[in-house]
């Protein structure tokens, strides 16, 4: 059965990711996805100086007299203070995994390509929201880090870094995340885009480091549809892209065991993330990018709300609004 046809999240107005991947330029790709998105999806709960008027509030002693609306005073003879939307100045660290396993793709493009586009789109969007975005490439021989900034030309640097060809190596997320934790001095949002095809338990420590630094951590798991349900047509000799190990696989015999072990892994991963206060979302590489982005931005907005001090219920944290691929397929 074609999983795409039955995808409940697929909407007709979303653009096919395969079509998006045809665009070579990463900036152009990100721009075409972001276009049409309404701004202000993550309004700040704080009031401050801004061009966006929010509301009036009665003047209390101690308020800055500059904020008093003198025209209103003239009309109503009451002291009101004008309040404006405060613009956030969020720092967002996007960690993109480019290890060898990310190079796999049965949809005509690789998971790495999907992850890269997602990161670029998010960076473009956040940058247009005047947020500071930084990039960290992991899973390569020489990880690169671009600290979050919001300045002219920074977006180009991000796009350049993302579109740089790199040779992946064996996944070592544990070390990479620990390195990222040491690199990020100021707190912000850490978004890890990876397939996380590693043992989940060792990730507990680096996730703890990140949380310990005050970061909000969102783990975005990118999976190929074939990885979810092992929908191989015939028995074949499979070669592990990371270790080079070869294994003869008869899909009919191995599928049920594969899915069971895959889910076990997912459950362990979820447990690890919860234990460290990180959020885990799973996205399939055949899902439309703008849909994924919309969901992601919503999540980021909710994270922002948490940052602003709104308590987050446990049910919110444990029920990600992304599709649960392991359940939905």
């Amino acid at each position: 059965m074609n999983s795409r046809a039955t995808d409940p999240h697929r909407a007709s107005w979303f653009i096919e990711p395969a079509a998006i991947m045809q665009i070579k330029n990463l900036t152009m790709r990100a721009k075409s996805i972001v276009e049409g998105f309404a701004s202000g999806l993550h309004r700040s709960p704080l009031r401050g100086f801004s061009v966006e008027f929010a509301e009036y509030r009665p003047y209390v002693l101690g308020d800055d007299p500059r904020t008093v609306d003198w025209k209103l005073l003239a009309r109503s003879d009451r002291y009101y203070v004008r309040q404006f939307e405060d613009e956030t100045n969020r720092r967002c660290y996007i960690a993109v995994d480019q290890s060898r396993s990310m190079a796999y793709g049965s949809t005509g493009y690789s998971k790495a390509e999907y992850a890269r586009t997602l990161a670029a789109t998010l960076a473009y969007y956040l940058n247009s929201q005047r947020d500071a975005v930084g990039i960290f490439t992991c899973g390569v021989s020489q990880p690169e880090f671009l600290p979050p900034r919001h300045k002219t030309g920074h977006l180009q640097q991000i796009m350049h870094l993302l579109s740089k060809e790199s040779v992946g190596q064996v996944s070592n997320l544990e070390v990479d995340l620990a390195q990222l934790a040491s690199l990020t001095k100021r707190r912000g949002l850490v978004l890890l885009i990876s397939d996380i095809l590693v043992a989940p338990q060792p990730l507990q420590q680096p996730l703890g480091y990140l949380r310990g630094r005050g970061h909000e951590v969102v783990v975005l798991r990118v999976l190929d549809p074939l990885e979810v349900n092992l929908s191989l047509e015939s028995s074949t000799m499979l070669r592990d892209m990371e270790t080079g190990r070869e294994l003869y696989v008869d899909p009919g015999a191995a599928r049920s065991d594969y899915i069971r072990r895959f889910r076990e892994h997912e459950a362990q991963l979820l447990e690890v993330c919860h234990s460290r206060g990180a959020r885990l979302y799973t996205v399939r590489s055949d899902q439309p990018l703008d849909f994924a982005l919309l969901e992601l931005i919503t999540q980021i907005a909710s994270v922002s709300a948490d940052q602003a001090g709104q308590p987050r219920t446990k049910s919110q944290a444990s029920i990600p609004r992304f599709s649960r691929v392991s359940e939905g397929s």
Partner: protein
Amino acid sequence: MGLLAPLYALAAIAIVGPIVFHLIRRQPTGQTEFSSLMFLRPSPPRLTRRSRLENLLLLFLRALALGIIALAFARPYWRQESFLTTTLEGRVVSVLLDTSASMQRPDVWQSSLNEIRELLDSLSANDRIAFYTIDEQLETVVGIDSDASLEPLASQQAVRSSLNDLAPTWRRTELARGLMDVADLLNAAQLTGSIGASVPREIVLITDLHSECGVEALQGFPWPEGIALDVRQVQASLPGNARLSLMSAPLFPDEDQVSQDEDVVRVRIENNADSPSQNLELIWSTASQQLTSLQTTVQVPAGQVRVIPSPRRPQGATELSLRGDSWEGDNTLFVAKLEPVRERILVSMPVIKEDEDNIGYFLSKAPLDTSLRRREIQFLPSNQLSAELSSGDVMAVVIEPTAEHFQQAENLRTFADTGGIVIIVLAHAPEQPQELAQFVSKIYAEPECTIHEASVGQFSLLGRVNYQNELFAPFADPRFNDFSKIRFWNYRHLEWEAGDTKIEVVAELDDGSPFICMQRTGKGRIWLLAAGWQPTGSNLALSSKFLPLIFGMLDPDMGELDSRTAIEVGDPLPMGITSEAEIFDSENKQIGQDVLARSPLDNDGVRNGADIRLYRPGLYRIVDQGHEWQVAVQVPASEGRLTPLDPAVFESYGISLGKSASHAERAELARQLKVEELENKQRLWQWLLLLCLVVLGMETYLAGRAAHLLPVTG
């Protein structure tokens, strides 16, 4: 049933291929990459229908077809023993054994004898064998036409028994001469009918085949058809060799002379290119003991030559030895005490006086002596010349022809024939040009020539110099070849009637007239100068070129080392010795016929010294009519250069090399030919191919039918 090419039957193993391919587990075609195998476990492949043999009949037919093809290629035949029995015809094998000095190396000689014994063992009872040895000349041990050789077994026995009496000599190798002679003998034997026309003929050459074994003479020799040459090269266990030769004559100062530094000879050490060692030692020794306290170590890298002064010669030492190379045999250099030879140069002119205007004045002033030759100028009236010519110590005659000389042309030519040098100088204008021309043409034994006084303006110069000639060769270097300072005020114009003469014009004047002419006659030379060297004729005598030119004309060897210091085994002795001469070796024993070869006595009962040869290296004392000489005879230089030569060199001379097959090999070859003939007659392979086609037809039919019946599967 037999197989002509049984190795082709191995192709039948190919039958296993399809069966094995059919039985082995089907591996998935190629590999598919997957992101991670962490959720997968190895799944054991299940036995499918493909893993079992199917269509056994088809498989059998295909295997049968392969087997038949393999059998057809192996070319089977039905055995017919009566057809295959053959009788081998006898052959004639001529063995040519190199017995030169280089074969003295013990392991080489022993290997050579072993080769011959092996050859004898491999011969059949009807093979005839002839046996020759070659050093400088061919020696017949068992001849092709000898009585023993006519009977095959007797000839083999004669060769076998002769091996014990053979020993290598100390002579040079002339392999080409030996091969040509043996080939001619074989050819002649066939022509005379002592060998049948169809009898195979082989020459087996057993030699160490070194670089100077004299095979070059085979160039241009038409090798007779039907004679196969098998070269069996025997190699020494240790490669390389170094050899020693004299570069200067030892002085042998008087015993009471104190200046010992002079008693040093210059020696040349030549190390072969394949020599493993480069550290050599020079040691003086007497006949009885080595003087090891006086030794010098020399480093001569392989393939190089060093000329060094020897260590100082102790009193009584007569042998200089080289140590450190792989063959000791040629390492001793015998140093003879050579007495200076007294020679006379006769000068005969119209007027004998101490005057610059005659040619003898400058000759008498010139230092013409060398360390081994004392040359004395003697002025003679022209009428006494003929009488003096016959005395043995006259080496050269310089004449300015007068009327009296004209009568002596015959004598002068005879003198030149026996090794003398005649120099005719036309120093002054001839009074009788006609007679002079006749004298010149008579002494040169050439047709008439014309001589007249040339008309010279202010002066004349040399126009052309032949630097190829040995006289001017030393001047060929541009530093020395300026002859433009030599001017001629007058000279005689010579012209030969016949253009084609044996006279070599060595130098010409600027009008093309010859200045120096030369003719080699017998062992000597006749020179003719068309102008004098005295100051009234030219300024040649005052030129620095005069002395080298005179030396060049007087010395036939052109400054080479005195022939007496470089006598090798087999060389004729350079001094004239009469039949009464007694020759003693270093132990003062008179030497026997094995060492000495004398020419037969001539009519006067005098032996020509040139035909007395010594065949063993050493120091000899010759006593003859009260005179006593010392002669050092060395191992031939060519036998010291022992770099092995590739036997393929014979093929470059148009001789096809073969391998003399043993009797068993020949029998096998003959049988193989018979088998081929039998197989060719039966041609079973054609029937097998036909059978194969039938099997393939059946296979095609069955396969087509099976494919038609099988359900179409996905």
